């Protein structure tokens, strides 16, 4: 899993660098950046980060041999992850209503590609967590939790970078 994360990290590095590259490109519509809602995105960011902690609690429940704790925190993690995705979904809907789309502008293309690929990873993470939870209920034992947790934490960390680059840094740039 470390190797998967190694190679995935390079993938996101390329996407983030492309976003930054595009942000300095002449075709980039900076005013569209201001249409992003940093407040709601900040809340969902906190939700996603919280899910890392709940998953950690689940993992600790597993290593201490408490299947009840494991199952409970797994479910909380999944709910938090789903809330994050829903939040991203509402942001997408709002932007598309405002006519900011993938094929409309360079900003739209960069934004939807970067956050979309991240969202896809969250979705995959949710599916895997769902499988792990199902197995935990079936067998009261699931040894893959450590590996899955590693992946989930990675996806969270990537989001922290994405959030910083897409939402936070533009607040400080003067346009």
């Amino acid at each position, binding site marked *: 899993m470390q190797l998967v994360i190694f190679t995935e990290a390079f993938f996101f590095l390329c996407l983030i660098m492309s976003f930054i590259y595009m942000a300095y490109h002449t*075709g980039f519509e900076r005013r569209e950046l201001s249409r992003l809602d940093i407040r709601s995105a900040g809340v969902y960011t906190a939700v996603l980060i919280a899910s890392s902690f709940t998953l950690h609690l689940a993992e600790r429940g597993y290593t201490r041999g408490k299947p009840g704790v494991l199952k409970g925190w797994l479910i909380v993690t999944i709910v938090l992850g789903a809330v994050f995705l829903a939040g991203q979904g509402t942001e997408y809907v709002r932007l598309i209503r405002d006519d900011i789309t*993938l094929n409309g502008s360079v900003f739209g293309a960069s934004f939807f590609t970067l956050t979309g690929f991240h969202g896809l990873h969250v979705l995959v993470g949710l599916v895997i967590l769902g499988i792990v939870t199902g197995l935990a209920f079936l067998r009261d034992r699931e040894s893959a939790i450590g590996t899955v947790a590693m992946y989930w934490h990675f996806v969270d960390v990537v989001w922290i970078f994405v959030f910083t680059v897409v939402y936070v840094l533009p607040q400080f740039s003067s346009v």
Partner: protein
Amino acid sequence: MGATIKIPDPASPFPGLGVENEQGLLQWLAAVDHKLIGIMYLVMSLIFLLLGGVLALLMRIQLAVPMNHFLPPETYDQFFTMHGTTMIFFVAMPAIFGFAVYFVPLMIGANEMAFPRLNAFGFWMTFLGGVLLYFSFVAGGAPDAGWFNYAPLNERNYSFHSGIDYYAMGLLVSGIGSVVTSINLIVTVLHYRIPGMRMNKLPLFVWMVFVNSFLVLAAFPSLNAALALLLLDRQLNAHFFNTVGGGSALLWQHLFWIFGHPEVYILILPSFGILSEVFQVFSRKPIFGYAFVAASSVAIALLAFGVWAHHMFAVGLGNTVNSFFSASSMLIGIPTGVKIFNWLATMHGGKIRFATPMLFAIAFLIEFTIGGLSGIAFSIVPIDWQLTDTYYVVAHLHYVFIGGTVSGLFAGLFYWFPKMTGRMIDERGGKWFFWLWTIGFNLTFLVQHMLGMIGMPRRVYTYPNLPWYGTLNFISTAGAILMSVAGLLLVYLIWKCGRAGRTAGADPWNAYTLEWATKTSPPPMKNFEELPPVSDRRAWWEIKQKTNHDDNRK
């Protein structure tokens, strides 16, 4: 002799399919054994080599005389794109992975790869990628923007048929195969070595594959990101690379070459590994400077990520950027040069056997050095400005790919063929092949240096009858025909000697590493039952010395 070490079975039990109990096609389709998958990779590579070779031959026929009308320009564009893409992604890569998944477990004294089913998945993804790429021919037209597929030529308004979509999908899919196989190889090397074989005792081929796998993991994501953006552009009308829509064509070049330059080292490092084994065995000496060969590969791998813009000197990035990348590119010459001297010193004072693998190894030294020197010439910015996009580039890259990578792969093929099939390739046939190939290759590409310097651009479907253009191109085409004959001879040799060659025995070359320690050739389904403990870099040689029933001529 002391106690032996039992080699553990793979985690999942062996299926009831053995090399002995023939089950026809099903045995191959359902294979998870690393040896069967290795052979499938190599067969795939050979098939695509023939396809790519035919494309190249057709191009050379078109270029044989000035103002030729053998191929229309659109077809010529598709052919050179497909030729490059095929040779790099579906000939060289599968050949490398074929040797790696076949021999890495054997050389470290393991019975399987770490994840056998993932191994099969990796192969089938690579194969599917190749099929997708070639499907473009029947789906409206092959990709036609060159193997590095520059924007904006790769955009829909320049290339409106679906060829480039198949290019992107094919490379994405085969890229998944490459990445999972690399992960598999790294885990195998880290966890399945026979006790006693520490990392600093690994055979050099294993070392190179190990370093190489990290390169794959770091480089392919960049290509995948670029391809994903390209597909978004083409399918969903995004504007990443479309300058008219506000995008940046240059971004493609950056992303592609951040992948592309490490990729050329991905293609050469395993060949370095093969040659490091071949030079030892056929000089009857241990490698000179083991640590230098291993460490300089790590150096090459790290430098690989700091040189990509030397493909873009003519873009106009400015003098500061150009100077930086010029200097970093020259640095690459140091670890590579170190290796050349390591191999020369390995040969020095050795008892050299001029068998076919060794001939290819020696040809490699000369041809790869020529390719390396023209490469250093290119890292000098003004020379690059003068020669970029001319036939000098074509000559340079073929000297490193064919003179380098392919020479190493052929050395490996002739060296390991007895182990994989149990039969020797007839030496006389092997030497015929070697000389036909080597003369043909040098005839084809040496003159292209000249053509480039007198100004012939690459990727043009024909040319006017300027002084020397006709003559040099005709020589080049004659060389290509020799290479084609050699290619056919190779297929014939593999076919004939694989079925009816002289029986090889378990260790025909009196070699040094553990793949030759299996009881038979080809190895039984379960590679090893048990092995004595090892402590030397030449593990099998050490075992033979101790058991003392071998005529070591060291």
